[in-house]
């Protein structure tokens, strides 16, 4: 009894009635419990990441152990003779994403500059919403559109460059269309963080709109813009359905820009359900490689965007 009395004095509740103390103590316990439960859910995010990496490593271990370095140097993926080389898929993944970035960046920056600097006020909101809607369309729709519309168009317009219509460059174009809204949204948000006073003072000195954009806005938000681009790159690297339809699914390394090829995600999507044993393990190893690449790219993007508002995309 004596010990509880001192404890109650220490907590400053000694003057209250027994029932009141009990009630307050229970509420305080609920408080602690509430925080712990919420923390448990937040901590689950870390566990999730750990579980993803661990499960991919464990299930791809047989293939990695069997093929070792050959997995990264072999230039074909031939399931019938159990030769699995990641090179064609890695090449296709990187090349299509780079093509996508090269096409998407100028267009996205153009749209962002137009929306923030030149667009009449009453059109700004509707146009932004329309561009964001483009981001909402599921990726499989982009793939179908690429296969049914873009590939035949490319084949008729440039038969020398795109003999089949499909291929790495076609996949790159589709990816570009997909990531334009992401890069545009981040760039627009980042540009909007520049205080209007800076713009107005530059205009007051007689700058043209382009000079304001180039010499005032761009230098002050460079990190954020690059972050948006890298975020778009991260999206492009892991995109599956849009690419699968149009990349051509050639499993031999074909080091050209427009030829048929494959990407990590497309290869997994095509072969995983019919695979078993070593092939399945090799496909999971590809997944592990893709995850590590995108993780590094996305981590870099978040680092660049750490001070900007454009984190939501």
């Amino acid at each position: 009894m004596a010990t509880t009395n001192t404890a109650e004095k220490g907590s400053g509740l000694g003057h209250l009635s027994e029932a009141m103390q009990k009630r307050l103590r229970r509420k305080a316990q609920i408080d602690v419990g509430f925080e712990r439960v919420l923390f448990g859910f937040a901590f689950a995010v870390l566990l999730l990441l750990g579980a993803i990496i661990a499960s991919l490593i464990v299930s791809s271990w047989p293939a990695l152990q069997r093929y070792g370095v050959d997995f990264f140097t072999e230039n074909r993926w031939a399931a019938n003779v159990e030769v699995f080389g990641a090179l064609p898929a890695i090449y296709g993944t990187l090349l299509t994403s780079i093509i996508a970035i090269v096409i998407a960046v100028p267009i996205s920056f153009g749209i962002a500059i137009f929306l923030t600097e030149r667009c009449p006020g009453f059109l700004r909101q509707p146009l932004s919403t329309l561009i964001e809607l483009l981001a909402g369309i599921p990726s499989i729709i982009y793939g179908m559109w690429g296969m049914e519309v873009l590939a035949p168009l490319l084949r008729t317009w440039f038969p020398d460059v795109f003999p089949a219509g499909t291929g790495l460059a076609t996949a790159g174009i589709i990816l570009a269309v997909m990531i334009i809204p992401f890069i545009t949204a981040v760039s627009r948000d980042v540009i909007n963080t520049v205080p209007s006073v800076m713009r107005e003072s530059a205009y007051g000195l007689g700058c043209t709109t382009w000079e304001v954009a180039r010499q005032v806005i761009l230098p002050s938000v460079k990190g954020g813009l690059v972050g948006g681009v890298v975020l778009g790159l991260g999206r492009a690297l892991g995109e599956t359905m849009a690419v699968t339809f149009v990349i051509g699914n050639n499993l031999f390394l074909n080091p050209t820009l427009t030829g048929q090829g494959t990407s990590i995600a497309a290869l997994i999507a095509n072969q995983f359900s019919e695979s078993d044993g070593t092939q399945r393990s090799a496909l999971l190893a590809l997944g592990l490689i893709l995850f590590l690449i995108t993780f590094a790219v996305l981590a870099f993007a978040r680092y660049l965007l750490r001070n900007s508002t454009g984190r939501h995309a």
Partner: protein
Amino acid sequence: MNTTTTSLYRRRKRLNQLVMAACLVATGIGFLFLFAILFTLVSKGVGSISLSIFTERTRMTGGGLGNAIWGTLVMTCVATVIGTIVGVAAGTWLAEYGGKRKMAKVIRFINDVLLSAPSIIVGLFIYAVVVVPMGNFSAWAGVLSLTVIIVPVVIRSTEDMMQLIPNSLREAAAALGAHRWWIIVRVCYSGARAGIMTGILLGFARISGETAPLLFTSLNSNQWNFFQLNNEMANLPMTIYQNMTINSFIPDLVSLAWAGALILTAAILILNIAARYFSRQRS
């Protein structure tokens, strides 16, 4: 002197006009793609839309998309419910308790990365930890992979919205004697409800069109499956994918795929617009 000034002035003006024209063209290209995709969807899909699409199950010849639409609705709804519980709780911790703690910074960073992680990796992960131990493809596996995708979205929007609640409101409630959990439930949630709902709606729209994570988890089926989450369940994205690839030699199924694509896209765009409208109304 005078002529050089005017020529410089003219050059700057011309450069400006050139760049602004380029920006306008870029904007035009962006909208061109949006309208080209929508036009293709409508022109190819609208012809095969009829009531039987919603009532008939998928078959090799004829049939509809009823079971696929139902399956997508069930799996998306269950995933959204689980994702909301986990995401709101985790987001609340980040906003209310995490603050500038190191643990909160790490979780925030990992969540931001998971937000854009490739969805096919999520499919592989769930395949390895759920499908293999269970021994068969199941709707539960599909639901879990969709949950993994929606949770980061909900966490992000919950945290952002709760941070918009001014601290003076929390302090006022605390001064009246409310405990912290009570402040969060009664003060913070009621202020952030509209924003969190918008985030959930956008997440719902996103996972309803995801195909890649379902490839090796829920797979697809030809049969009606109403609530048997332990078995394979038909779903719209997988049906579209299969009809466009392995079944693409059957013209009927291809046109069904386009109809399904139109229905899916229309539903997602309407959800997106509704979410935006909703959030603007409340704010």
